[in-house]
């Protein structure tokens, strides 16, 4: 009898824990949808406002009109990127994600990502320092996805540093991992407010919203972008070890210069003769 009672109590505890976890996931999903909505509405706002301004002002001078049209085009491209990222996430959810691994020079990818993210950083008045090795470092990854992840992290960093005082560092470092194997880490670091310590292990979880130290409330764009970043790594087939056995590539961010992030490795390996689909 006592045995049965104990086992019933145990089952109740487990059910309660599962229920709490589901409620937490539900809340995170709501926050995520809200965050994605926010990300989509922002470029739409510029597009609509500038289109209406031009519609209502037929006498506008040509240079002004050209500037506005350029913004409309750029914001449309941004919107397209966001929609594609959300579709990527949906594909991962449904198990239909495709990736194409090849031998990739991670230094070249980092350089391209820095170049691509440069306008966003410049717009924010942030300085980007790129610390890359001179020689190529070969890893097995989907180059496009890897670049997308780095761009997401860089533009996310740009959003959170102080206007005109921001500093972002993109760094590729090699070191020796357990067993003496050579490892590569890609780091994106900035001097923004930082992610609270207790949130650092979970910021790349699906639907997770970060909270800044300064405001304590969900930070703009962070949840969406981090989810997308991690999902892109997953699409690349090279995400966190716990997600895929053949994981090789990870990217870490660090908002607090005083506490460097745990280094998650990229294992370099020489270019192979064949490529895996």
């Amino acid at each position, binding site marked *: 009898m006592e045995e049965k009672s104990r086992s019933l109590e145990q089952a109740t505890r487990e059910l309660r824990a599962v229920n709490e976890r589901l409620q937490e996931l539900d809340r995170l999903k709501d926050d995520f949808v809200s965050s994605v909505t926010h*990300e989509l*509405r922002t470029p739409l*706002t510029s597009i*609509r406002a500038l289109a209406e301004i031009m519609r*209502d002002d037929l006498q506008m001078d040509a240079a002004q009109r050209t500037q506005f049209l350029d*913004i409309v085009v750029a914001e449309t491209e941004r919107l397209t990127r966001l929609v594609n990222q959300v579709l990527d996430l949906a594909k991962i959810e449904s198990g239909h994600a495709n990736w194409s691994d090849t031998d990739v020079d991670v230094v070249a990818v980092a350089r391209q990502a820095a170049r691509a993210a440069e306008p966003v950083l410049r717009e924010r008045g942030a300085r980007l320092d790129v610390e890359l090795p001179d020689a190529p470092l070969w890893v097995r990854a989907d180059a496009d996805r890897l670049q997308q992840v780095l761009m997401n992290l860089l533009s996310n960093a740009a959003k959170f540093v*102080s*206007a005109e005082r921001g500093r972002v560092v993109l760094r590729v470092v090699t070191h020796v991992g357990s067993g003496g194997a050579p490892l590569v880490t890609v780091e994106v670091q900035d001097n923004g*407010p930082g992610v609270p310590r207790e949130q650092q292990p979970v910021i790349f979880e699906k639907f997770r919203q970060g909270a800044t130290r*300064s405001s304590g409330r969900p930070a703009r764009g962070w949840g969406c972008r981090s989810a997308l970043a991690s999902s892109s790594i997953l699409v690349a087939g090279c995400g966190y070890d716990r997600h895929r056995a053949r994981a090789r590539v990870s990217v870490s961010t660090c908002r607090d210069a005083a506490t460097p992030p745990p280094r998650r490795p990229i294992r370099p390996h020489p270019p192979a003769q064949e490529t895996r689909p």
Partner: protein
Amino acid sequence: MSKRVLIVDDEPNILISLEFLMKREGYEVQVARDGEAGWEAACTWRPDLVLLDVMMPRKSGFDVCQAIRADERLAGMRIVMLTAKGRDTDVAKGLALGADAYLTKPFSTRELVQRVRDLLEDAR
């Protein structure tokens, strides 16, 4: 003397469009790129009306709105909150904190201009 409008938003392209729009209406305009800078400008420049984004780094629009309402020196300052978060709870929070109006992005520029005009008329 023309009325002063302060625009606080961290999206550069939204700032460009709103600045153009408000200047076209004949208002004197200043812009701020985050909540902290917005709060400082509200205190020093003393605008008649603030167009205030909600989700911003450093200090949120809700925080700025609350700070303005808590400061007697800034009494009478009109606040229009602009947000890409259009949930009812967000709207209710903005209005509860003392915003005069709340528009969801993307908004109609004609509607925004009309709201601003009405609020500044009332302020006379």
